[in-house]
C-alpha cells in the first residue's frame, strides 16, 4: 500500500507542530523519518493513525483520500503503529495484548485464548518475531515487548507499519534483531515508517529518508546520497560535531568512593553485587552495560534514593552511607535520572517551578517560608536562555515540551547549583543529535570545572565519546574498569555480554 500525505497541518495552542507536510511512502519501502526533538514527527504519525485530527491537508492510501476519526479506522484501513511509549497492558499476557480489540471469541463472548495464541505463533514464525504467547508482558525485556507491539499490528493485518523510535530502548543486539524483522516485513511487501535519532541506523536500513525540522519537511534523500554529517546538518540547520572534543582528564582526588556495595532491587533480589568504584574530581567515569544489569540500582544508591544492603559510600571523604536523598543533595550531588518524566520532573508544574525544584526552599528563591516568585521567574528566564530551552514561556507546564527540551530543564536545574558530583543516567536517551552535542559539551564542561561525573549509559558510542574511564557492569558486578583511551569497542562489547578475557577476574 502506498501512503501519501499532502499539506498536513496541525496546530497546538501557540505553535504549529506540522506545517503543510508532504510525505510519500511507497509500497515495500522502509522510509526513515528524521528530525530534531519537537520537530513534529510523533504528531504527524498520530494524525496518520487517527489519534489526532489534522487542521488541514489530506491523507491518501493508494491514491484515494481517507479520513480517520479514530485509531479503529486507521487499523481497519491497514495501518499499524508502534508507539514511542509502548501501548501494552503490563499485566496481560502477550496473547491478551495482541488480541485486545479484535478478540477471538466462542459463544457468549467467551475468549478463545487458544486460537488467538495459535495465530500469534503463526505470525511470529512467518516474520521471525519470537515471542512467548503465554508470558505476562511486564516480565519480558523491552526488546521482546517491542516485538509484541509489532505483532499487534501484524495481527491486525497492517500493510503500513509506523515505528516511532523503536531503537531508543534497545540493546545493539536487539536492534540488529529488529532490523532483521523489518527486512522480512519489507520482503512481504509491507511499508515501514521508521523514526529514529540514530543516524547510523538510518543509513543502515532506510530506502529513503525524510528530514523534518520545526514542523516542516526540510528535505528527502537516500542513504547512498548522504552522510551522517549531512543529515545532522539538515536536521539542526547548522553543522553538528558528532564527536566530543575534550582534553585529557586532570584528576584532583576522589569525590565518590563506593566500597563493596550491595543493593537489592524492588523484589528483594541482589541487583548490585559488591561493587567498588571511585570517581575523582575532574574525571568522567562511564558505567557501560546492557540495560538491567544493576545500573539503575547503583545510581539510586549513590544518590541516596535506595538504601544499600551492605558496604559503604563516601562523599569527599565523609561517610554518607544511609543518608537521605536530601542529604546527598546537600552534600553536592546532582542527579539526571534515567526516566526524566517519572523521576526528574513534575510534569504538571511549570518550567520555572521545575527549574527550582531542589532549591526553592532557600535564598534567593524564598524569604523565610514564602516563595519569591519574581526571583524564580527571573532565574527561570535566565536559564531558559542559557540552556537553550525552546519554549514559549517559563509558565508553561513542562509536559508540553519535547523530550530534548525536558532534558535540558533537568540539566539546567542541576547545573545551576554548586555540585561536586554529577550522576547522570542515560543523559541523552531519545534526544536528537543537536541536543546530544549540547548535553555532551555541558558534561565535559562540568568535568573541566572540577566536578566528578558518573555517567550510566547503554549507548556504547556515548560511553566511548565521554568517558575517561569505563566500568563495565554485568549481572550486578563491575567486570572491569578500563582507561578510555586504550579501550576497544569490541572488547567492551564482549564485556557487556559478560565474557571476560583470559586471565582476568572481576576487578574494581
Amino acid at each position, binding site marked *: 500500500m502506498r501512503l501519501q500525505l499532502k499539506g498536513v497541518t496541525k496546530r497546538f495552542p501557540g505553535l504549529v507542530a506540522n506545517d503543510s507536510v508532504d510525505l510519500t511512502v511507497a509500497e515495500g519501502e522502509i522510509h526513515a523519518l528524521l528530525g530534531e526533538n519537537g520537530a513534529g514527527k510523533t504528531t504527524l504519525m498520530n494524525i496518520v493513525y487517527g489519534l*489526532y485530527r489534522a487542521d488541514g491537508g489530506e491523507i491518501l492510501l493508494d491514491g484515494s483520500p481517507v479520513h480517520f476519526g479514530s485509531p479503529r479506522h486507521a487499523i481497519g484501513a491497514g495501518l499499524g503503529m508502534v*508507539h514511542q511509549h509502548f501501548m501494552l*497492558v503490563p499485566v496481560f499476557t502477550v496473547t491478551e495484548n495482541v488480541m485486545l*480489540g*479484535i*478478540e477471538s471469541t466462542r459463544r457468549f463472548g*467467551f475468549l478463545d485464548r487458544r486460537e488467538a495464541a495459535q495465530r500469534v505463533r503463526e505470525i511470529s514464525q512467518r516474520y521471525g518475531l519470537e515471542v512467548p504467547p503465554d508470558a505476562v508482558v511486564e516480565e519480558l525485556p523491552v526488546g521482546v515487548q517491542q516485538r509484541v507491539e509489532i505483532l*499487534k499490528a501484524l495481527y491486525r493485518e497492517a500493510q503500513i507499519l509506523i515505528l516511532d523510535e523503536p531503537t531508543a530502548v534497545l540493546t545493539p543486539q536487539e536492534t540488529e534483531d529488529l532490523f532483521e524483522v523489518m527486512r522480512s516485513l519489507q520482503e512481504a511487501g509491507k511499508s515501514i515508517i521508521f523514526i529514529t535519532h540514530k543516524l547510523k541506523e538510518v543509513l543502515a536500513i532506510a530506502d529513503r529518508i525524510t528530514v523534518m525540522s520545526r514542523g516542516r519537511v526540510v528535505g528527502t534523500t537516500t542513504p547512498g546520497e548522504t552522510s551522517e554529517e549531512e543529515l545532522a546538518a539538515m536536521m539542526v540547520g547548522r553543522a553538528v560535531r558528532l564527536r566530543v572534543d575534550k582534553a585529557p582528564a586532570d584528576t584532583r582526588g576522589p569525590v565518590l568512593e563506593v566500597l563493596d556495595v550491595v543493593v*537489592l532491587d524492588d523484589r528483594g533480589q541482589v541487583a548490585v553485587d559488591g561493587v567498588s568504584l571511585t570517581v575523582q574530581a575532574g574525571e568522567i567515569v562511564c558505567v557501560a552495560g546492557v540495560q538491567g544489569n544493576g545500573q539503575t540500582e547503583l545510581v539510586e544508591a549513590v544518590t541516596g534514593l535506595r538504601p544499600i*544492603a551492605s558496604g559503604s559510600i563516601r562523599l569527599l571523604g565523609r561517610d554518607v552511607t544511609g543518608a537521605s536523598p536530601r542529604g546527598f543533595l546537600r552534600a553536592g550531588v546532582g542527579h539526571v535520572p534515567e526516566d526524566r518524566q517519572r523521576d526528574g520532573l513534575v510534569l504538571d508544574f511549570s518550567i520555572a517551578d521545575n527549574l527550582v525544584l531542589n532549591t526553592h526552599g532557600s535564598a534567593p528563591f524564598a524569604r523565610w517560608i514564602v516563595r519569591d516568585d519574581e526571583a524564580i521567574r527571573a532565574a527561570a528566564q535566565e536559564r531558559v536562555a542559557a540552556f537553550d530551552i525552546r519554549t514559549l514561556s517559563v509558565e508553561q507546564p513542562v509536559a508540553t515540551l519535547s523530550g530534548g527540551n525536558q532534558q535540558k530543564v533537568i540539566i539546567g536545574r542541576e547545573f545551576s547549583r554548586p555540585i561536586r558530583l554529577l550522576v547522570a543516567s542515560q543523559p541523552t536517551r531519545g534526544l536528537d543529535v543537536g541536543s546530544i552535542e549540547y548535553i555532551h559539551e555541558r558534561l565535559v564542561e562540568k568535568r573541566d570545572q572540577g566536578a566528578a561525573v558518573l555517567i550510566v549509559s547503554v549507548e556504547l558510542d556515548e560511553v566511548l565519546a565521554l568517558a575517561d574511564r569505563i566500568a563495565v557492569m554485568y549481572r550486578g558486578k563491575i567486570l572491569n574498569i578500563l582507561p578510555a583511551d586504550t579501550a576497544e569497542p569490541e572488547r567492551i562489547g564482549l564485556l557487556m555480554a559478560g565474557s571476560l578475557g583470559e586471565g582476568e577476574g572481576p576487578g574494581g
Partner: protein
Amino acid sequence: MSVVAGSVGASTASLRRARVMGILFLLVGVLIVLVFGLGSEGGVVSRLGLNPARAETLFRLPDLVLPARSTAFLLGAVCAFLGGVQLSRGFERRVNLVIAIVLVLFVFAFLTWAARDRSLSLLGMLQSTLLRSVPITFGALSGVLCERAGVINIAIEGMLLTSAFTASVAASLTDSLWIGLLSGAIVGGLVAGLLALLAIRYQVDQIVAGTVINILALGLTSYLTDQFLQRNQELNNPGRFQNVPIPGLSDVPILGPVAFDQNVLVYLMMAIVAASFFGLFYTRWGLRVRAVGEHPKAADTVGIRVLFTRYRNVILGGVVAGIGGAYFSLGAVGRFEEGMTAGRGFIGLAAMIFGRWNPIGAFAAALIFGFADSLQVKLNILRVGIPSEFLAMAPYLVTILIVAGAAHRVRPPAADGKPYLKE
C-alpha cells in the same frame, strides 16, 4: 566473597520471615493450650450444633460433642506441630495455606472454649456468617466493577443507603418486593451515574466525589426518614423476601441449610459473584474492561471506547450496590432505618482490596468479615465476659487489621482513579 555476602543478604529476609511465622504458629499453639485448655474445667463438654433450626431435614447430623479441655490441648498441639515443621523444614510457598489453617484452628479452639458447658449452633454461625457477608459482598462487587475499569468508588456506602431507603419505600407503596428491589437497583445506578459524571466528565477528584455522595446520601435519607417515614409508618413497611430452599441442594448436610436455604437476594449475590468473575477474566467484555483500568491509552489505540466503558461499568457497579442496598431493607430487616448500612460499604471496599479486585476473592474476604460480625453477636449471647461494645467493634477491627496487613502487598489496577484525557 562479595557474591556470597550478596545472596545471603537477600535470602536472610525471607528466612527471617519464615522463622517469625514458625514462632508465631508455636505461640498460637501455646496460647490455645494455656488459655482455652487450662481455661476450661476438666470433664466439661462443648456441644456444637450442626443442624438447622427447622426440624424437617432429610439428613440429621449428630451434634459435635467435644471435651473442652482435651480438644483445646489437641488443637494447640497441632498448631505447635505446624510451627515446629515450619521452623525445621519450612512450608515455603504453602505457608499462606498454613497460616489459614492455624487461624481456623485458633477460632475453632476459641469456640469450643466459649461453648464449654453449653451448646452453640455452629451451623447457625455459618448461616449468619453468610447472611452478614451479603451486603459486604455486594459492596465489594460494586467496587470491583468500577475499579477494574479505573474509577475509584468510595460512594458504595451512599449507594447502599439510598437504595435501601428507596427499596423500602417503593415496596411499601406498591406492595411489591420485586418493584422495591428494582427501584433500589435503579437508584443505585442513578447515584453511580452521578459519580460517573463527576469523575469521568468533570474529572473531579474521585475520592472527593465519592465522599460528597456519601454525605449527601446519609443526609438525604435521614432527613426524609425524619420528615416522612416516622409519621407514616405504612411507607416503611415493605415486608421481607422469604427463604426459598432449593430442592435437593438444600438437603445436603451443612452446605444445604447454609447456602441453599436463603432468600432470592442471596442467590442473586452468588450469581453476580460468578458472573462477574467469569465476565472479567474469561470474556471479551472483561478483557476490555481490565485494559481500560490498567492502561486506558493502550485500550484507546486499539479502538476501545475508554470513557464509554467507564460510564457503563460505574453504572453497573451502582446497580449491584443498589441490589445490596435493597438487601438491607427487603432481605434482612424488613424496613428502613437511619444509617442502617453502618459502614458496610466501606468494609466492602476493604473486602475488595483484600480480595485483590477479584470477585471470588472479594466474596471470600466478605465471608471473613461476616464471620467476625456473627462471632461478635454469638459471643454477646454466650456472655464470655467481654463488654458488648468491644465485641461490636470486631468487624471494624478486622477491617483495619486486614487493610493494614495486606493492602500494601496487593496491586490495584494501574489506572485506578486516574481520569483519562484525550490529546
